[in-house]
């Protein structure tokens, strides 16, 4: 991971408008990366048609899993919850605009995997 690329992600994490608890969330989904201890909680607010109208997250861990949580929160708004299940890892990784080493894939994909694990 190049320092210049990391800087972009890092700056993003300093001021994500999606970070924070949502009091009126329809879904609260938690995910943990057991091997490194990263933890996230996603808050999704749905309308009657199960379309996501608002999203936020809380995070503890590395910059990559933070960025993944923030990017996911931004991208899911307007989508139906069932659509997220169909998202492929490769599609999500495109949002990062940088090469992610194999060892760090679990970090950036934590948010997507967490979202896919939602339960009603």
């Amino acid at each position, binding site marked *: 991971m190049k320092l210049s690329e*990391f800087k972009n992600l*890092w700056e993003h994490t300093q001021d994500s408008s999606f970070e924070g608890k949502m009091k009126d969330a329809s879904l609260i989904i938690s995910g943990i990366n057991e091997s*490194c*201890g990263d933890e996230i909680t996603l808050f999704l607010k749905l309308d009657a048609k199960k379309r996501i109208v608002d999203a936020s997250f809380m995070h503890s861990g590395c910059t990559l899993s933070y960025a993944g949580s923030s990017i996911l929160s931004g991208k899911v708004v307007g989508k139906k919850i069932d659509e997220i299940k169909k998202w492929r890892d490769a599609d999500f990784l495109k949002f990062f605009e940088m090469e992610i080493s194999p060892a760090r894939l679990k970090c950036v994909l934590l948010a997507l995997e967490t979202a896919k694990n939602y339960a009603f």
Partner: protein
Amino acid sequence: MNKKDFPIFKNHPKLIYLDSAATSQKPRVVIDAVKNFYETTNAPIHRVLYSLGEQATKEYEAVRKKTADFLGARGASEVVFVKSATEGANLVAESWLRDHLKKGDEVLTTIYEHHSCFVPWQEMARKKKAIFKVGGEPTRQTKFFAFTLASNVTGEIFLAKKMICDARKRNPQIKIFVDAAQAVGRVPVNFKDLDADFLVASGHKFYAPTGAGILLIKKELHKEMNPFLLGGGMILSVSKEKSTWQKAPYLFEAGSPLTEAVVGLGAAIGYIQKIGLKKIRQHEETLIAYALEKLGALPSVHILGPREIKKKIGVISFYHEKIHAHDIASLLSEENIAVRAGHHCAMVLHKELGISASVRMSFSVFTEKGDIDKIVFALKKINETLGI
């Protein structure tokens, strides 16, 4: 000081390898010993009636004697070759603890342990309804006490001899397991002098090939232990009704051994002895002092463990207030610097320290002050680029 002895640096001239606590690089003499064994002596060992097999057996058993002398065992029979220190610990859990631990007995360990010197006892205590205690002093109820000679996270050297002496005063029946995986090859370790019952070491951390694990078992305990693995190599007789075993150490070495790894271990011990542990320790102390000074001056970087050079092996872990350990390791990788990041198989200790992960740099005979300069420079660059 000995970089030229390690061919990996010829193939990767820019590599700054600071991960020897995980596995060391291998010197030419070890690589040659393994290659030479395959080219000139390779054959099954023990129970072989042809000369090549006899020669292979002779080499394997010579390393057992060499290991016994190197680690201060009372004789070659106290040396068991295992796949890894982890396997050694599991062997002790299954072959001694299982048959001796009773409901209500206490098994004691410390917060500093690597998972391999923690989980096997925790699991066996659970199965036997014994009490598993982490931290504190041994008591009359403590049947088994396991601890590390030097932490794989903080690098702290523990006063093992005193701890064992004190434990035996409180309970003469106590059995003591010492995890010397990080200590061997860095500081002198003497099994007899320590008066431990069991000790494990990990050859691949001190220049030997992977698969060269060592377990020392005090002679007096051999008769009260059962085999861990059953099958070839450890058998005395087999009938339809009953099977009998060989004596230790063969009793504990079922299956075809990792002969070439053991041969490499012999060369690794020879390599250490040629340089001398005193010189190796002096080199480490110089590096520890330099690293503590340089790292300690960096903003937002916090070093874990003691700062006294004499209390540390060449293992230094730190965390950054603002950047996660995994991010730092990834960024250092761009500068060809290999460090470890995570909990280093010591989750309990990290939790106790209030952090989820740390960055670990660990030294070896090939580590130079210039390597420390490079990691410090890279960390400074990260701080500056991110405005920290």
